[in-house]
């Protein structure tokens, strides 16, 4: 029997004045009905383009090779006339994207948007669109399916939005569902719910699914077979279990090992010091964000948080988006003005100074932000960027700023040549290293890391975390590590504080929190972590 989908020698390039860029090269795979193929790769590996090619939704500049074939039930999708392709698209072949908010029309109620998809693919014109939409909403597990259709996208949570997108994809009774990073934009617990839903849908409807993700752990929980891509090429393919246990390619080995090493890191509690001095102490810290307009209520982002961080230790601050964890970091470095409580940094009360940190004091606490693409000025060279702390904090190192900058770059594993580069000439990992070097130039006692690896590819994540761990040891830094990825936190943190809706609900040693969570919220958070299927 012929497979449902048969992709042969798929090649996609982007021709340009400066030569053609090869985005996908010689990719071949098959998919049977009712099976899931996982496609794993880092950004730029061509995994999304492969998914888009199935629906002929590639960007206009892309060119598919003449020799490429995509057979669906024996017909070549690449040569199909556009009107017949349109009938298949959203019908037998459906796709769900990463950002549900960006995919839903903001000014139409979601029921009408799904209704449009139902009407478009209805076999007969006299169907009752309303009942169909209700049925789909019930199937994807939305609450009050009879009434939720009247709501607008912004009135729904991220998880609900993604469920609406799924309902829309199911409207045409698809045989193949392409899911392109469907849970990447969602919080961990919501991600777990959506993944469960996808598995159920596949079982009930017998869907064939192409599941695209950068996260090997997520894919391993979804897919029967897996395809690992790198720089447009397939580096590995086979049954999921086999790839996890006996990866043939070096790249797959690195990917799997990076995940495992995060998992297996020793979390030694106690550095031998009897009672290390507290570096940072939060005492009933409260932060409000003013609402827009005079009468709008304030939003309480952080609600009476008390926390102590001892010298040379790493505290992992965990929580979902909106839990207030980043706001704490910003309050400590003085970017946000708290409305109550106190922050004691190196024994000095910031509330007593009316939250104004004296310039000389600022060097003790530095922050590294999430997005390495945004936190370096595109029009300043690395040297200019690293020079800033010397100027604004009036630092006068004995060996001169230049030597100090070179030493700082070498410390984070970059060479001195990097100084003359602009940020766009560096990779994401290199940029984040520059950001770390910049934060370390004033020789801070406390370094706040706000989701610093979540924008990086998996194997780069590990390198940066490893670097951070070494720096902490050599410099006796205290780290406040803010993150949502519990695997990353497990690797780096000595203690964990779990935040939920502006409060700390649980605080204990890493091992204890992850293995015996006490609070119900921490328990649901930890059970939602995607894990590699095989041990």
């Amino acid at each position, binding site marked *: 029997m012929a497979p449902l989908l048969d992709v042969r020698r798929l090649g996609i390039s982007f021709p340009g004045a400066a030569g053609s*860029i090869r985005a996908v090269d010689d990719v071949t795979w098959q998919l049977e009905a009712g099976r899931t193929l996982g496609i794993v790769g880092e950004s730029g590996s061509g995994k999304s383009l492969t998914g888009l090619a199935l629906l002929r939704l590639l960007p206009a500049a892309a060119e598919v090779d003449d020799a490429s074939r995509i057979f669906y039930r024996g017909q070549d999708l690449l040569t199909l006339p556009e009107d017949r392709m349109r009938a298949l698209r959203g019908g037998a072949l459906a796709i769900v994207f990463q950002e549900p908010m960006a995919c839903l029309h903001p000014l139409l109620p979601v029921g009408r948007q799904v209704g449009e998809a139902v009407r478009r693919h209805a076999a007969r014109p006299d169907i009752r669109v309303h009942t169909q939409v209700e049925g789909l909403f019930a199937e994807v597990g939305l609450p009050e399916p009879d009434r939720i259709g009247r709501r607008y996208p912004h009135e729904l949570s991220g998880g609900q939005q993604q469920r609406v997108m799924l309902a829309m994809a199911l409207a045409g009774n698809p045989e193949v569902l392409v899911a392109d990073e469907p849970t990447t934009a969602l919080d961990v617990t919501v991600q777990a719910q959506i993944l469960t839903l996808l598995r159920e849908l596949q079982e009930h409807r017998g869907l064939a699914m192409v599941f695209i993700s950068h996260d090997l752990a997520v894919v391993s929980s979804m897919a029967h077979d897996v395809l690992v891509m790198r720089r447009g090429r397939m580096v590995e393919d086979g049954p999921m279990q086999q790839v996890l246990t006996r990866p043939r390619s070096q790249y797959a080995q690195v990917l799997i090992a990076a995940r495992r090493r995060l998992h297996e890191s020793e979390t030694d509690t106690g550095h031998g010091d009897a009672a290390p001095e507290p570096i940072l102490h939060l005492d009933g810290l409260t932060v409000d964000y003013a609402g827009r307009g005079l009468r709008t209520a304030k939003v309480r982002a952080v609600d009476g948080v008390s926390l102590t961080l001892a010298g040379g230790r790493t505290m992992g601050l965990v929580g979902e988006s909106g839990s207030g964890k980043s706001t704490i970091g910003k309050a400590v470095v003085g970017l946000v003005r708290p409305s109550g409580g106190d922050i004691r940094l190196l024994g000095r009360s910031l509330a007593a100074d009316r939250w104004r940190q004296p310039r000389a004091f600022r060097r003790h606490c530095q922050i590294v932000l999430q997005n390495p693409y945004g936190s370096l*000025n595109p029009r300043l060279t690395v040297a200019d960027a690293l020079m800033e702390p010397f100027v604004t904090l009036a630092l006068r190192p004995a060996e001169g700023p230049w030597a100090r900058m070179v030493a700082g770059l070498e410390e984070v594993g970059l060479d001195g040549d990097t100084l003359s580069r602009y940020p766009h000439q560096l990779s994401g990992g290199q940029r984040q290293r520059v950001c770390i070097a910049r934060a370390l130039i004033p020789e801070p006692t406390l370094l706040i890391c706000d989701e610093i690896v979540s924008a990086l590819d998996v194997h780069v994540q590990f390198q940066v975390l490893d670097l951070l761990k070494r720096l902490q040891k050599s410099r006796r830094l205290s780290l406040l590590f803010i993150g949502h990825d519990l695997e990353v936190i497990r690797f780096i943190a000595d203690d964990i504080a779990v935040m939920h809706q502006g409060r700390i609900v649980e605080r204990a040693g890493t091992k204890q929190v992850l293995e015996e969570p006490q609070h119900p919220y921490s328990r649901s958070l930890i059970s939602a972590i995607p894990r590699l299927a095989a041990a």
Partner: protein
Amino acid sequence: MATSSEPVDDPAVRTGDTGSDRIRRGGRGMDTIRRLPATLLFSLVVLAVFLAAVALGSVLIPQDPFEQDLLNRNVPPSLEHLAGTDNFGRDVLARLLYGAKLTLMVGLGGVVSALVFGAVLGLTALAVGQWLSVPVYGLIDFIRALPDVLLALILIVALGPAISSVMIALGIAFAPFFAYVARAAWMREMAADYITVARTFGAGRLRILYRHALPNIIGAVITLVAVILPRCIVTESVLSFLGLGVSPDTPTWGRMIADGTPLFERAPHAVLIPVLALSTLTLALALLGNHLRARVDPLRADERRRKTDR
């Protein structure tokens, strides 16, 4: 497609392209000229001709731009009068060359003062804080609400007729364009993470402005100069036409166009030649502005270099 994995697949990184390379590549002489893009070459040639005309105008052309010859009115271009004569029998080419200097002075003066009143004042106010930026932008909104020619008229009457008051009036009338572009760019910059980081290093407001934000704002402002300069030249002609620009006898390009328009059917050359001169100059300035912007922008400079390398 951009790869963000290490090591990077970026030619500039791979070849270890550094500042010193760039200087070496710069070269000198004919070689450099041949490598210039055609558009830049065009704008440089036009500007060179224009500047030569400003400097040598009266030397090259024997005719007196003021001398009236009522027997030879509205004569089409001939050997004696290369660009023909106007309604008073004055030589169009002589007036064009003579007027180039004033046109350039008024245009540049207007743009520079608009840049100072709009962008410099606006950005400084934004950097200093709300207590200053709110009233400053309130005033700018008020200026924008008035028709620019009317506003310029009032200002010239108030300041007294002189070239300097025309420049100031044009500057104030066109300041809102610069102020709005500067504010939009400033808002975008303030949301960037690198500004946040600069704040954690204790950088002051004005330092954030000139060190971190300005390099990203300057490109938009330079482009706007190229757009506003010709508008200043044209507005000056309207003011001259109303008798409030530079003295009515003195030829400027705008004034020549304004004077010639009613007689377009009888003497089209008297309008078309200054119009052609004005639009060629405008185009040259716009292209030059574009190139300048690419030059101050390391992102685009790199792109361009990569293209010429292959």
